[in-house]
């Protein structure tokens, strides 16, 4: 027998070539391992929840040359003062207003209730009810977003973000102390 060339081609009976059959299966374990490693990486690094945008319109800066704003009936207006510890102090009207306390879970009902009364009082006007939101310095940013969100939820069309006055802060403090609420 001569030296074998090409690995076992010329073996056995003469004339008949027996090709060595390759195993058609490849070991895919390393590839699959790597695949899962990548999968884990991508699963852990992606953030699927894309943030949402909440539109907000703030009043333009008041110019001294601008004409004074129109007067509105105080019975149409409700003022919400967002205070400390998720408290909302609110009052209606301007003549000796009575301060009341509420929170973020119940303010919705107050708005609905007062709006209904107002709409019955002024049946000929479109959206007569106005909400004025005043954020005190003790509130946090979550409160700001939450109260603006309430406007969307209650589909309140007319509302404004206004800076609280010194008188209102004083009123709020007086109410807070009288009610025995801690800061």
């Amino acid at each position, binding site marked *: 027998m001569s030296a074998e060339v090409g690995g076992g081609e010329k073996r056995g009976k003469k004339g008949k070539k027996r090709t060595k059959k390759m195993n058609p299966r490849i070991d895919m374990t390393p590839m699959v391992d790597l695949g899962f490693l990548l999968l884990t990486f991508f699963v852990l690094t992606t953030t699927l929840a894309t943030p*949402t945008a909440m539109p907000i319109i703030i009043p333009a800066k008041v110019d001294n040359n601008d004409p004074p704003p129109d007067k509105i009936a105080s019975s149409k207006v409700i003022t919400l003062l967002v205070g400390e510890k998720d408290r909302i102090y609110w009052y209606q009207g301007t003549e000796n207003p009575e301060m009341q306390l509420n929170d973020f879970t119940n303010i919705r009902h107050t708005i609905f209730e007062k709006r209904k009364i107002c709409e019955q009082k002024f049946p000929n006007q479109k959206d007569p009810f106005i909400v004025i939101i005043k954020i005190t310095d003790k509130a946090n940013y979550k409160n700001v977003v*939450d109260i603006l969100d309430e406007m969307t*939820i209650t589909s309140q069309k007319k509302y404004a973000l206004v800076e609280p006055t010194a008188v209102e802060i004083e009123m709020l403090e007086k109410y807070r102390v009288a009610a025995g609420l801690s800061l």
Partner: protein
Amino acid sequence: MPKAKIHRKSTSIDMTPMVDLAFLLITFFMLTIKFRPPENVKVITPSSVAEVKIPNENILIITFDTTGRVFLSIDKKPAKIQLLKDIGQKYDLAFDEKEMKEFGMLADIGVPIRNLKQWLSLSVEDRKKNCPGIPCDSTDNQLAELLTMARKASIAATGADLRIAVKGDRKASAPTFKKVIATLQSKKINKFNLITEGEAKPQSLK
């Protein structure tokens, strides 16, 4: 009598469908992933019922955190480089090629304009540690300054104006928010977006 043959079952299972699925998922995640440079400030945004998705192009984000620091970020790289050039011109600071490149990769700016050059020379980790925020008090409102310059730079570099969005931490104080709002108001930007997390709208409404 012939011996009873015990039929041996193969121990290997066909894993082909599982592997197929795994690769499908890889492809999906690879295509959806978006790499962002590391942010210098991390905030947890409050949630709202707003359903509009935030636009992901040509957006200027003002971020403020619990400690009252204010950051500014724009997304397009050419706009950022143009902004740095403008800053250099206006404040007589010379920025070299390397600094321009670094600035282009930056996720957000969190230092007063004067400290920008020194801040850029720091490593990524040190930059994060040395962020006093952009001053935006009424006496020294550099945020307003940067706002105007960024919008101009964006128009010059990409031809598109920037949309303004405000992103705050849910525990951030109201005065910080008011400060940012007052700055926007002073620049006559009265319409903008607050970046929030999605939340389901309550169903039981009267």
